[in-house]
């Protein structure tokens, strides 16, 4: 147990991320079920309007920051070092720090569901209720007097630090820790997409950090960054938020695209079609993702020039995305297809992401977007790209890499049931939302009138949501059963091309008994150009140094929520305690003898 608390091993940290993120995914899912239950009928009264606001805010915030990003991170952690032939990441203790900060940030945020009485709220739940995007000036103290928004902004600041630290770690890992011969253009696409994602993280998160600092100062210290009467503008928040928020959605989708790019070739027994183009497209998406943010603000009144510019850039960014889709399809075309569950999810990703991408393209035109924005049409778009896209991609990754991580295969039978229930469920849940939105139902409303004519469609959508829940239940059963009943995986259950399949499942603590020298992009396959590599020997030729654990990353991590508690509870001395804990953790960490 202690070894898990002090671990600096990327594989263990990857598993910790997985279990924690999956738990938050379930919480976010329950929040969604409450939302759908409330909306199943017009004039619903399952929950109050106030609770409903908290539900959709926390559903969004939880899914984005506590589920999707960390689930991707669990693969960054576990798989990237294996794919590049490394023994661990560049900074193992910083890696552990990122995990503990994530866990503590997630707990901090979710504590708000239960601590209302401590804030004399007259209710149990004081969870954030301003939407996951927290628009000013609704979030100002004047309009949101309770602690809800404080939990939100402080929680996000804590989580931001976790992501930033991981960003620096993985950039250095991927650039500097590759095995001999592993040139950048030989690196698996998942690792490439991880690299692009981390660049987006380290450039986008500072912007939201500043936006949140302004909000914090407005709420706690009486400044006026978003207060119109002082000459400021709430639009500044929207700019700062979306300058972060748009790169954020690429942070959410690129890893899943990377997973799909690795899964498809394995189960088509064919190399990825146009590897170079797929990589460059990913890089291009990363850069261009910075040029489109105000397409989230078409209804704000930016003026015709700004609207046109962002409309054009948004339409342009569909191009590299489309290129990737064609390359994926071409990979499958003429391949020797094995219909594993992982492949089902990868193909499902392509199909659902196309639909989400198409609704996205309709958003790119300001006139049409004016009809769609703030309606359920956008909710449909979001969920097709994030659920049909990212989550399906992540499940493809889970079915693909779970055997590597645990040594056990997941059941294909249960997997197929999971897939089909989820696939049908998501389309039943989210497709009607296109229509519901165009028929005029706004987002973020706790109920609707029967006269709107969307009652049946809402009921249908709710049924779909519960179908999804059922599919997740099937998955959980699969996951738990696999621990004892799963077929043993061996090194390479799938005939994979990349380095992670050359070592045991799960890998030994040092990963590679001998660091391989890589000569091409598909080292484990025989191709017309080369023979397959020889896998590393079962036992290392000599002792391999593996760094031990450390308590200090966790100690330092604790400093952050303590610091955050200070403004939350208006207790100054807590800030000093938090800072002291953080500093103590950092100093002990810096001077601890630790060899990588």
């Amino acid at each position, binding site marked *: 147990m202690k070894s898990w608390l002090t671990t600096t091993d990327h594989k263990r940290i990857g598993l910790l991320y997985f279990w924690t993120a999956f738990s938050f995914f379930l919480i976010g899912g329950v929040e969604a079920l409450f939302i759908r239950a409330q909306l199943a009928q017009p004039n619903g009264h399952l929950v109050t309007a106030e609770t409903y606001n908290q539900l959709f805010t926390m559903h969004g915030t939880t899914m984005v920051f506590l589920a999707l990003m960390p689930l991707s991170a669990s693969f960054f952690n576990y798989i990237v070092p294996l794919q590049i032939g490394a023994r661990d990441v560049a900074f193992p203790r910083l890696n552990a720090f990122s995990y503990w900060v994530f866990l503590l940030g997630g707990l901090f945020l979710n504590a708000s569901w239960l601590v209302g009485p401590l804030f004399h709220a007259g209710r149990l739940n004081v969870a954030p209720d301003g939407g996951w995007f927290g628009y000013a000036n609704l979030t100002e103290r004047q309009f949101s007097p309770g602690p809800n928004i404080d939990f939100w902004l402080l929680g996000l600041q804590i989580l931001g630090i976790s992501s930033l630290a991981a960003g620096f770690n993985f*950039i250095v890992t991927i*650039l500097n820790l590759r095995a001999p011969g592993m040139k950048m253009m030989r690196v698996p696409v998942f690792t490439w997409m991880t690299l692009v994602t981390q*660049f987006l993280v*380290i*450039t986008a998160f500072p*912007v939201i950090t500043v936006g949140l600092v302004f909000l914090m100062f407005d709420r706690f210290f009486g400044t006026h960054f978003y207060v*119109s009467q002082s*000459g400021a*503008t*709430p*639009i*500044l928040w929207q*700019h700062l938020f979306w*300058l972060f928020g748009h790169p954020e959605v690429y942070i959410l989708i690129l890893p899943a695209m990377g997973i799909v790019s690795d899964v498809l070739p394995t189960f088509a027994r064919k190399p990825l079609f146009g590897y170079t183009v797929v990589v460059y497209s990913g890089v291009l998406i990363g850069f261009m993702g*910075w040029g489109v943010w*105000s397409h989230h603000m078409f209804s*704000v*009144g*930016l*003026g015709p020039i*700004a609207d046109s510019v962002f409309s054009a850039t948004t339409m342009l960014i569909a191009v590299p995305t489309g290129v990737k889709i064609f390359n994926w399809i071409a990979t499958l075309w003429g391949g020797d297809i094995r219909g594993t569950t992982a492949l089902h999810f990868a193909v499902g990703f392509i199909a659902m992401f196309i639909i989400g991408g198409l609704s996205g393209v309709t958003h790119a035109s300001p006139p049409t977007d004016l009809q769609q924005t703030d309606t359920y049409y956008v909710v449909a778009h979001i969920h097709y790209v994030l659920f049909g896209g990212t989550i399906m991609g992540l499940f493809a990754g889970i079915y693909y890499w779970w055997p590597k991580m645990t040594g056990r295969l997941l059941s294909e039978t249960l997997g197929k049931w999971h897939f089909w229930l989820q696939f049908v469920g998501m389309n039943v849940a989210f497709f009607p939302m296109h229509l519901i939105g165009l028929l005029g139902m706004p987002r973020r409303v706790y109920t609707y009138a029967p006269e709107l004519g969307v009652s049946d469609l809402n009921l249908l959508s709710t049924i779909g949501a519960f179908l999804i829940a059922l599919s997740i239940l099937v998955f959980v059963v699969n996951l738990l059963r696999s621990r004892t009943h799963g077929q043993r995986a061996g090194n390479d259950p799938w005939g994979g091309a990349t380095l992670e399949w050359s070592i045991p499942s799960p890998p030994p603590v040092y990963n590679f008994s001998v660091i391989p020298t890589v000569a091409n992009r598909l080292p484990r396959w025989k191709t017309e150009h080369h023979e397959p590599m020889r896998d590393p020997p079962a036992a290392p030729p000599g002792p391999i140094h593996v760094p031990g654990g450390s308590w200090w990353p966790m100690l330092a991590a604790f400093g952050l929520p303590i610091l955050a508690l200070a403004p939350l509870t208006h207790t100054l001395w807590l800030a000093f305690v938090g800072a002291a804990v953080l500093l103590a953790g950092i100093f002990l960490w810096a001077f601890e003898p630790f060899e990588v």
Partner: protein
Amino acid sequence: MTEHSHPTAGVYLRVAAVLVILTVLEVGVFYVPAFHPVLVPVLVVLSAAKFTLVVMFYMHLKADSRVFTFLFGAPLLLAAVVMVALLFLLLGALTLRGAAGAG
């Protein structure tokens, strides 16, 4: 660690001298009314020169790996573009439509 020739103390002192001169010029331009029409461009150029000198010589970027130049330069360029875009979006809107309901 790769060794590359380290600048001598002389180089550092000369850079320091130039930095001081540039700062004096900046303050001078601020105080001399004749320069006010070109105040902004001149100050931007002078401070950019100081910025570049510190980064290239004190932070050793000129002699170091291009990887470091990319890791610093790409976000810097991005930041500059974002700043210009924000100025256009928020100042343009505010001056065209007046202060009320900014845009």
